[in-house]
């Protein structure tokens, strides 16, 4: 029980010490114990020695998060983002920015999980089932990654549609459709904010994934209700001009 305060004092003493990598214990205060000296400064190591590096990253089967707690925390996030915003666009921008770093992380996690386990979610969608999945180099591969594996990682199912803009003016626009986004299940926007779609958070995640892969993108979420699916949402993915140029070069080079 006395361990946590000791760690705290150890931190304040040894913070002025040298940088990381000092594995030989320095002769410091005489009353410091061997156990605390062997630790490197600047990091609080849990007393049971279980750091984040000791835990495994694979999700055990059926270890799923409660939907109620997710709905609660997401509701809090929306409330938080709504403080001091100027309008709906501003609010959606904030939600987008909250999702962006999550997208960057998920990308690494997704690839880690699909390399470490042989029966991966990634291989089921791709035509060739090579054991280490490839980084997406082309737009279509990237969108399939989002539509399939990423959606399954987040929501337990694939997205409902993936379309390319038919207009010749906007060849850089792609649409990912989710008939019933989980983030909007317990959200009903007031009448004067009917344009708002809180799935802007998911749009931010998509943006983070695309950016992480090196595809500069703007992603926005739009309400497109149908009679059957009242909360149907379309994620509009707009790639930057540099991405489209590179896409042409890669197509000529025959990279897939």
């Amino acid at each position, binding site marked *: 029980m006395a361990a946590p305060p000791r760690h705290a004092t150890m931190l304040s003493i040894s913070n002025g010490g040298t940088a*990381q*990598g000092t*594995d030989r214990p320095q002769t410091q205060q005489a009353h410091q114990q061997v156990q605390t000296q*062997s*630790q*490197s*400064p*600047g*990091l609080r*190591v849990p007393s049971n020695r279980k*750091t*984040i*590096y000791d*835990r495994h*990253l694979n999700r055990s089967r059926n270890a799923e998060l409660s939907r109620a707690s997710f709905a609660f925390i997401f509701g809090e996030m929306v409330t938080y983002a709504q403080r001091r915003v100027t309008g709906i666009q501003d609010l959606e921008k904030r939600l987008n920015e909250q999702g962006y*770093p999550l997208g*960057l*992380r998920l*990308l*690494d*996690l*997704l*690839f*880690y999980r699909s*390399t*470490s386990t042989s029966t991966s979610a990634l291989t089921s969608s791709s035509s060739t089932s090579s054991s*280490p999945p*490839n*980084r*997406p*180099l082309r737009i279509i591969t990237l969108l399939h990654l989002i539509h399939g594996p990423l959606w399954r990682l987040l929501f337990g199912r694939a997205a409902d549609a993936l379309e390319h803009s038919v207009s010749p003016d906007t060849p850089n626009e792609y649409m990912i459709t989710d008939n019933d986004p989980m983030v909007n299940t317990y959200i009903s926007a007031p009448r004067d904010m009917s344009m708002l779609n809180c799935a802007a958070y998911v749009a931010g995640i998509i943006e983070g994934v695309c950016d*992480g*892969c*090196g595809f500069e993108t703007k992603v926005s979420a739009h309400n497109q209700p149908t009679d059957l699916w009242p909360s149907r949402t379309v994620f509009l993915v707009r790639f930057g001009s540099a991405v489209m140029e*590179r896409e042409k070069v*890669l197509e000529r*080079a025959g*990279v*897939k």
Partner: protein
Amino acid sequence: MAAASKATSFNSSTAHLGLNNHFRLKMSYYFTILSPTDTPLFNIAFGTSKGGGDGIARFRFPETAQYMNQFIIHSSLDILEEAQWTNGGMYLKHIDTYPPAAAYITAFLTPSGARFLLLHQPPHLPSSTSTGSGLGSSSLLGSAGSTTRASSSSIAANPTSPQTEEAVRQFMNEVYESYVKTAMNPFYRQGMEIKSPVFRSRVTAAGKKWL
């Protein structure tokens, strides 16, 4: 715990192997993680631990190694960014060589764009020392000669051999696992320097295990 006990055992073996290190083929390594915007996130220098190596880096030009290693690694980034769009794998293998320092660069690219770059440098050119090292170890090692294994020299001798590439792949994958764990930390944002001593010890352990 395990790393610490290993370190002490290596230190004790250094005492009588130190003399022979010049005659044996021990690779020196310099490993860097760069963010997608080329910011250095993590650096470490270490040497071969296989076959009785002490795990200490001995670069050819020790007085300039500290900045030359970084220079050589960063100068390979152009080649990496070209290879990035032709090879979809995460492990890009040996991508660049810098002949004046006999430095070989091997690259690994995470999906989110962080680059793992490993510089390896044999102490002498492999062709000129392959005979010399054999003679040196047989005549000078004496009792410690039993630690020299044929398998270890094959990894150390040729930086572009399939065995080396496989060993580096294992090393990179192990570092990647630790990197993902770092990235999943909510207090870590992409592009931040990795300061965790636990991460450093993990990388050191991976280096000892595979290189």
